[in-house]
């Protein structure tokens, strides 16, 4: 079993790991020939399945992988990986490889940083050091080289250990819409959550606009022991997104309009199927008709963690499955057409 590669776009890699680590520390990293997959399935809250083409974060030329099962499955603390990747900032070369030390598997990150030094690390010494040993205390301007090695403990997962892990299956979405800028969405969401948290204990989590629909609880999971405020997020097929929170004391809502409801890829779907999609039915409902809205209730804090992926400035398509789940397809910049670099977030809706 071998894995070795040079890194490129370490900023992207670092931001990716930072976003992932907000959801959970234990990450299943699957190295394949063309793609690298990162999966985090926390005990509670949102799970994320990411698929990144090798060339997005690794240097394809140097990417080497050897395994009996055509893939290497690693369990890694993604927060630790993220911390280690900080050493790569400004580095002239960074290499990641699978290795072993005392029978412990490791992911070793080796970084060479060269930076131009103005010739002295001295603070106030101006006197000439010429004639001194040329190894020590060189005052001349030169490239300064530093090697950094980060050895991250990992667990190698056997193929059989990951066989049972699959992405969740979801019904076709009722509404799919491109989210507005995540920075804005996050700051508003966070403010709503904070407002509702201040009156914790009394907040009812009841929805602002709608009477609780009869279909509530149909397929929604009940992690309702969580007392954190629940945001209500809803959207329709006419480019509108609504973020709302309601407690006994307050009801607030923000509405975005003019957003895009992206068309589905016609390659994957026939015309006949297309017309039967729930989203097409929803599109048929009038803009002002509440029944044209699909909504989910999500945990404010969990949502905030999900939105931390905004640091990658991605495009995000949100798929609403009414009262059941919200699936986010997060496309990294540069991969919009290829659709290869994609993080998929599965967020369950809470029942009222």
């Amino acid at each position: 079993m071998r894995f070795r590669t040079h890194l490129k776009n370490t900023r992207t890699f670092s931001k990716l790991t930072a976003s992932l680590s907000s959801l959970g520390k234990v990450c299943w990293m699957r190295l394949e020939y063309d793609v690298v997959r990162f999966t985090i399935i926390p005990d509670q809250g949102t799970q994320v399945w990411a698929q990144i083409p090798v060339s997005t974060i690794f240097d394809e030329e140097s990417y080497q992988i050897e395994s009996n099962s055509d893939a290497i499955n690693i369990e890694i603390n993604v927060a630790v990986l993220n911390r280690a990747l900080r050493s790569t900032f400004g580095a002239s070369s960074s290499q990641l490889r699978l290795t072993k030390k005392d029978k412990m598997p490791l992911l070793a990150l080796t970084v060479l940083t060269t930076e131009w030094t103005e010739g002295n690390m001295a603070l106030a010494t101006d006197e000439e050091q010429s004639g001194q040993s040329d190894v020590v205390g060189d005052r001349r301007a030169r490239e300064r080289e530093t090697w950094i090695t980060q050895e991250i403990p990992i667990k190698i997962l056997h193929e059989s250990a990951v066989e049972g892990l699959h992405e969740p299956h979801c019904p076709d979405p009722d509404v799919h819409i491109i989210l507005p800028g995540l920075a804005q969405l996050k700051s508003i969401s966070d403010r709503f959550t904070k407002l509702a948290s201040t009156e914790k204990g009394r907040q009812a989590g009841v929805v602002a606009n709608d009477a609780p629909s009869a279909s509530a609880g149909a397929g929604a999971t009940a992690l309702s022991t969580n007392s954190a405020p629940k945001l209500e997020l809803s959207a329709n097929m006419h480019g509108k997104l609504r973020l709302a929170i309601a407690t006994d004391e307050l009801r607030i809502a923000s509405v975005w309009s003019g957003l895009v409801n992206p068309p589905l890829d016609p390659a994957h779907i026939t015309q006949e199927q297309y017309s039967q999609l729930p989203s097409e039915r929803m599109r048929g409902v009038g803009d002002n008709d509440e029944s044209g809205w699909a909504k989910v209730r999500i945990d404010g804090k969990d949502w905030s963690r999900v939105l931390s992926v905004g640091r990658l400035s991605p495009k995000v398509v949100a798929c609403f499955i009414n009262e059941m789940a919200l699936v986010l397809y997060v496309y990294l910049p540069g991969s919009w057409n290829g659709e290869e670099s994609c993080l998929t977030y599965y967020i369950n809706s809470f029942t009222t």
Partner: protein
Amino acid sequence: MSSLTLSLAPPALVRLHDVLICLSKFSDTVAIEAEHDLLRLSALNSTKTAFASFVCEKEVFFETYAFNVRKDIRSSSGSTAGDRFYCQILLKTLLSVFRGRVDRNKDTAVERCDMELQEDPQETECRLTIKMICGLGVIKSYKLTYEPASIQHAVFDKGRATNQWTADPRFLKQIIEHFSLSAEQLDIYSDSGKAVFTSFTTKIMDGKEVLKYPVHTSVAADKRDFEEIQIEDNMHIAINLKDFKAVVAHAETANATVTARYTQPCKPLQLAYDFEGVNAEFTIMTRGEVEGETAPASSRVGMPQLSQRHTPAPISLNRMNTPRGATPNTQMLPPPPRSRSIRPLNGSSTQEHLAPTAVSDRPSASSVSMDYDSLFVPADDDRQWDEMDEQEEPQDILGWDASGRQDNSEPTLQEAEPDFPKIADTRRRPPKDEMGVPPTQRMSQVWEPSRVGRVQLTLSRFEGLVSSIENVSSQCFRSFRSVRSVY
């Protein structure tokens, strides 16, 4: 009766605050010692593995400084010895006085700080008065309680340090920034043109929680990045990373280049720098034993002069022979070089274990204990009882000097603290005179049964203590404590 009055200009006030912050990373209390021409602030950490000291010079650091002492009267609370006065104060309270005092944007910014301390046996209260003379005629006064203290200094002989480097704190900080926040130890060694800093953690982990194992980070810097570096190749020396961080952080604020001096593992390391009339010195105990999995395997190669370097320090013998009643101060002593002199304390019940052969049942102690693969080391390292090599023998053990003088070789406080100076004294001399035991003799031959019995008795307590601290302390620091608890 002694009195101390001093005043500080705002820049010095900021410096003092920085110093106190740095000291607070070592201990809860600061020891204050006043002498005629200097004021020393120091702190010793709870495990007694790190000692931080700042000496502020009268002429440079202070606006005014006056210290008077009348020797003829015994002091009431704080201690006056010779021509010194010393006491200790809780850092938390002292820090709160200085926090945020120099804000030039405010009308009421501090313009001067006066401190006064009067010790009078007639007074029952021990008070340090601090007055902040602020703008607009505002004067803020604080009265802090101080406590008497027996103050000790780590002894470190710069002249004997064989390894030395000097570096810009910003450069050191760049190195530190690569380390994981949870890393506990820092290993330093050099290999050809590189100086390698490795952070590691000696936490004992459950085998299943692989992902919680600490990350090892090593940073190999070009030796030319140091202003000066003269260190033995491949000799690993490990210190507490937290201490190192504290020193570097403060050196950076003081804009002073840091010099490190040391001899070998398990001997103290000193980090020192000067700035604006302040001399900062940090004496930190080092670890030498680097577990095979935590560091490059070169640790054994690193000791080319095993036979000489591993002669035990005289203090270890001396301490074992010190009658118990005479040792109230020896509990302040740091441990001897660990692998060997600690041996008799590790739960063995028979006298034979005190014999040097017992060392061999712990072969894993790599760098300090003998390298049994080496051709040059006999299986029975009886040589540890040999006569000291003149050059190696007065090693720079982390000893304690209550006299408070930087350079003195003769303690002067015999009257005030009869026990300790004697011990400190013996430790810095060849052992022949003081020990009463010819160094060529085996321990088993000298120890009286009664004394052995006493050691055994305390061992059971010792073991309990060891197990209770096992998780928090690295092995080396554990041995530090063991010495304290046994004696």
